[in-house]
């Protein structure tokens, strides 16, 4: 399912830098939208819009780093490419430690920016696909009855039907029926696939 087109959001307080970035991206066929401040972006951003962020580290008001922090708080997973000036390397390092996708020191070659943007867009698409995938699995899990869920948990722990039947105090035949329902509802073709699904939605350690 192909949804909204990918957009590069450029946030920079300098009119000329912002506009020139937009034009550079446009010349490479990349759709860009610009904001003059972090606040402006945050107030208008819709999390369903795929893309990536190109952020100036130094901005009056909310700095790029503060904005990154805010995005993290809001659970925005869009990759962030920081643009830094001369002497901002410590800030760039901090940004990377907080999960920035990449950074660029300005002025920079167009290809350097475009390569990073392309990679960031790919990453965002992957992230979103993964999220969609896990969302679907969660939906299917929610459709299971409590008994089916118990069967699923035991089966994916590697227990045979007979042991599951013993654990739950039901007949093996009943377990088989539940198990068939689980496989059907989870749209799993095999036990291996079912296990992979459960791993995908397991809370990360």
């Amino acid at each position, binding site marked *: 399912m192909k949804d909204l087109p990918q957009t590069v959001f450029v946030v920079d307080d*300098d009119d*000329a*830098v912002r*506009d*020139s*970035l937009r*034009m*550079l991206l*446009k*010349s*490479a066929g990349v759709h860009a939208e610009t904001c003059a401040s972090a606040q402006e972006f945050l107030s208008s951003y819709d999390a369903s819009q795929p893309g990536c962020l190109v952020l100036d580290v*130094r901005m009056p008001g909310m700095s790029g780093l503060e904005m990154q922090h805010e995005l993290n708080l809001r659970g925005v997973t869009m990759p962030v490419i920081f*643009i830094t*000036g*001369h*002497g*901002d*390397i*410590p800030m760039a390092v901090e940004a990377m430690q907080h999960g920035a996708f990449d950074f660029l020191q*300005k*002025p*920079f*070659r*167009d290809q350097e920016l475009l390569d990073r943007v392309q990679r960031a867009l790919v990453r965002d698409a992957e992230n979103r696909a993964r999220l969609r995938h896990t969302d679907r699995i969660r939906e299917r899990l929610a459709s299971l009855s409590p008994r089916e869920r118990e069967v699923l948990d035991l089966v994916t722990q590697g227990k045979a039907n007979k042991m599951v039947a013993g654990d739950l105090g039901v007949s093996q035949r009943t377990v088989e029926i539940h198990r068939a329902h689980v496989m059907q509802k989870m749209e799993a073709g095999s036990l291996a696939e079912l296990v992979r699904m459960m791993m995908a939605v397991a809370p990360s350690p």
Partner: protein
Amino acid sequence: MTAPTPEVLALLEATLDAVVIMDDRGRIEAFNSSAEVMFGYRATDAIGRNVNMLMGVVERGEHDDHLRRCLPGGEAPMPGRGRDVRVQHRDGSEFSVFLSVGRIPGTTPAKFVGYFHDTSLRQKALATLEKERQVNRLYLDLAQVMLVATDRHGVVQLANQRAIRVLKREHAAIVDSHWLDSCVAPEDRPVARVAFRNLLVSDSDEPQQFEYHVRSSDGEDRFVTWRGVALRDANNVATGVMLSGEDITDQRRAESEAHRALERMNSVARLATMGEMAAGISHELNQPLAAIANYAQACVRFLRMPAPDLPEISGAMEQIASQALRAGEIIRRIRSLVRNEDVRRESQDINELIREVHGLLASDARVHDGKLALDLTSPLPSVTVDGVQIQQVLMNLVHNAFEAQPPEHDGATFEVRIATRVTDSGDVEVSVSDLGPGLATETEQRIFEPFFTTKASGTGLGLAISRSIIKAHDARLGYRANQPRGACFYFVLPAHQEASP
């Protein structure tokens, strides 16, 4: 039927009210000339007819009853007091009068006298007066200033709309209240009381000016600048005061904010270390350069397209030109910052300049876990310098010195020393020395080059700018190894000729 005596007639003619005398059946016996004017009948025509003809359509029936009630044994022995009634002119038009009817004592059968007082005139006058009052009120309310009038005791007689808005009180809550006690901010009451008294005792008609806070109903104090005059009666006795006030709270606030911002900027300019200044400069220069690079690269891409978007390209080219000019402007500003033509040179005591920035430098020292020592020779010949610039150089040198502190120092406090001394030639040497690692030989050779830096986040401009500042003072910023170890930066300023004997 007795005719009125001449005295009575004369009396009747003198009054402005219409006076009609009638008998117990309401037949008119006398009709004065004011009545002739009011009703349009000649006395000769009116006399002998029923008074009913003067009454308005609604009143006619009632009037008969009224008269009847005035007869002996009636319900109302002496009406005396009057009432508003509608009466009719000969031409049929009706109007309002105030009518009082009284029985003439000692008349049998009873006779009555009616006084018709033309209230339509009075009402007209009242309406005119009211209108004038409203217009005046409007003038007051339209005024962009607060207008407040009080009597000589300070009780408010009048407050316009503006005053009501500023005070956030109802009109009724202001009028009749005591101005000083209820509207003036408590802290300012003494000031306001003096101003009030001065107005009352002053002989001059010139408005007096004063300022004090008023307190609004929600407890907010507004700062008001007032002009006041005394109100005087015909005998020139002050009966009260009239105040016109302008709420300048917001204006004052803006002024003081602008003032604070200016002070902040001044102190930033004064206190920013060279490094910070240089970082700011390089950031500023980087912006137009980055924009130029982006625009130019975009142009190249557009031009390579089969059908280049020419308007887009020419827009970008224009931007390139203007950003290049912007970069040039920044450079021009930096130059003027360090050129001597813009500086103010004054005869100064260097020790004094050092003491002035000592507090700030000491806090820089604390940040670096270090200590700043002063080793000042006194007295010193005075020097002609731009004090702020020399302080900037000092701050930069001291900051650099603390930055040179090795990360793992042996627990000993890292000390930076500012020293002043008189050279053999009688000039003033200022030096900043530290006990750090000092400079490697190759570093020493390049240390004053612009953009040369040994620091991870340095700009390489601090020392270069410091050097040009010192050079603009006809002196030289130099480096020598410190004894027993560390670095020492110094400059020698020529002593002021006249001041040194």
